[in-house]
């Protein structure tokens, strides 16, 4: 049985203009000890789907799921209070912007000790010792001194290490990282990714890595979900997604990765157009408007998920037998 199993998750936001269907029926799973990448543009529903599972959405959000199971527990059945016991202890979360994700008026120590004391019910002194150990694990020098400092005394990279320290403080089974490197300098990005990679191996934690950077996915993950317009358009192992991508959107993502190896001056190929309006999502495939291989049927009927291997699925009409030869596959 998988650590996290989600069946047909739908999340909508009520706003003045109507209902934004941010997540439109996605199903996926996370295995024990693996790291799953979720890739897609801003607004494709990556973060919202994870926040939905953690019941951390604002009040104007509504979510439904046929089935959400974490570590053998049915999350559909439990209320927010019980969920809170799992948050921070069994599920740790790392956010995008370390500059704004730490409380500016509390010391780093307070913020790391807090989840430890809430979930493990140990003394203040023991929790402090544990916090020092964790700061060592995330490679923050002189942790005893650093505990008493405030976030503004830390650099961006150091703050993200603190965020990671908070997330792993109670040895979670699942670590959700929402674009953990987007707000950091490139050199710091690599350090943070290395750290997460080490931690994952040491702690046997499953990681869900939300990002729009395929490079990060290639380095960190075993499997990838490609999200577009609130749906999963393709899912597969790293190898399958990078070497046998089947969905035109995945092709576009891969073509828009800059390469430095060839030496030739190559233009990046962007995906033209912009993501669909999720207040009135398209009837058929959400990518139709931007897809250079779009057919008549794409506009009218949403494509079914087609299973290509045990791990590889994609939702595209091009894979229908009648559409063979319409498009040429892209590989790296």
């Amino acid at each position, binding site marked *: 049985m998988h650590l996290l199993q989600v069946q047909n998750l739908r999340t909508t936001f009520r706003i003045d203009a109507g209902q934004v269907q941010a997540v439109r029926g996605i199903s996926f799973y996370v295995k024990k000890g693996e790291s799953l990448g979720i890739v897609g543009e801003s607004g494709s529903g990556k973060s919202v789907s994870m926040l939905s599972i953690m019941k951390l959405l604002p009040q104007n959000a509504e979510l439904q799921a046929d089935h959400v199971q974490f570590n053998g527990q049915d999350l559909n059945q439990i209320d927010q209070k019980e969920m809170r016991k799992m948050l921070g202890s069994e599920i740790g979360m790392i*956010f995008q912007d370390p500059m*704004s*994700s*730490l409380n500016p008026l*509390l010391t780093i120590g307070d913020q790391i000790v807090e989840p430890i004391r809430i979930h493990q019910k140990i003394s203040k002194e023991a929790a402090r010792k544990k916090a020092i150990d964790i700061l060592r694990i995330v490679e923050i020098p002189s942790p005893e001194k650093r505990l008493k400092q405030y976030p503004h005394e830390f650099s961006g990279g150091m703050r993200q290490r603190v965020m990671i320290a908070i997330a792993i403080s109670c040895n979670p089974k699942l670590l959700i990282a929402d674009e953990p490197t987007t707000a950091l300098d490139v050199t710091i990005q690599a350090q943070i990714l290395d750290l997460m990679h080490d931690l994952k191996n040491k702690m046997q934690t499953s990681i869900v890595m939300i990002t729009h950077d395929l490079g990060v996915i290639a380095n960190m993950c075993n499997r990838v979900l490609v999200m577009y317009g609130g749906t999963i358009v393709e899912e597969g192992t790293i190898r399958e997604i990078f070497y046998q991508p089947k969905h035109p959107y995945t092709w576009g993502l891969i073509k828009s990765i800059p390469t430095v190896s060839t030496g030739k001056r190559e233009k990046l190929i962007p995906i033209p157009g912009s993501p669909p309006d999720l207040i009135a999502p398209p009837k058929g495939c959400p990518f139709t408007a931007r897809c250079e291989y779009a057919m008549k049927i794409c506009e009218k009927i949403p494509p079914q998920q087609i299973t290509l291997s045990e791990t590889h699925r994609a939702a595209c009409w091009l894979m229908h037998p009648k559409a063979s030869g319409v498009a040429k596959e892209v590989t790296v």
Partner: protein
Amino acid sequence: MVGYIVKRFFASLLTMFVLITITFFLMHSIPGGPFSPAEERKVPASVLQKMEEKFGLHEPLHVQYVNYLKNLLQGDLGFSFKQLDVSVNELIAQGFPISAKVGLIAIGLALLIGILLGIVSAIKRGKWADWTAMIFATIGISIPNFVLTVLLMFFFCVMFKLLPTYGLTSWKHYILPVIGLSFGPIAYIARLMRSSMLEVMRQDFILTARAKGVPEYRVIFKHALKNAIIPIVTYLGPLVAAMLTGSFIVERVFSIPGIGRDFVSGIGDRDYSVILGLTVFFGVFIIVMNFIVDILYAIIDKRVKIEE
């Protein structure tokens, strides 16, 4: 830190000097004086002259001004022109504790209720609790407190005869003056707190706290409140100064023997030394309060560095 205090001190001295100068000349430009013969009792001209000489009123204005400053430097605020053998220093020593006591209670009440109302309406944004609190706050801000105190007095003292109308001899005497004093500040603090709280609850670190499994009451009272309270601290300086030095209107309406009442009657009587003395006292008080607030900032928010 020491350099900062010294700098602040000299800036405050300059402020006080300007304040005293303006008050002095404005006060003397009001028609009439403390011994004007416009009263019912006719005072013989010779007596009037003697009295003016005793208080130095016969001197030219600029000489009086310099004399006043000289005495002030020695901490002497002079004698009241109207109350026999009472110095302004004594007047403050008597009146200020009374004003301060009523004021402190009112500040405590205003902060407690104001902050709570603000938090509740921010959390229940758009719900009936929010609407009720904000309608209450709007009323509180729009009704001037001289109207409010008179209304309170009419209902509670005259119509229902529940509470006494004047003096300060039992706890019952405190109820109406404290409500009268704190009503406006409650409304103001509630509105300030609401908008500040709404702003803070949108911040990323609130989501971080929730993702750590922190219970909601702790998210609100530990993570959000500390951040949201900073604007209230700003308002605290002028508020404390205004409340502790007594509200002119409230003390007058309820006949509370505080310095606010002394000030109002001082102006009516052209009691020059009382007007000036209390102005100096209020001025110093407000400056000191604002200074304390600046220090408080640095204590609450470690990012604020006190500039040298």
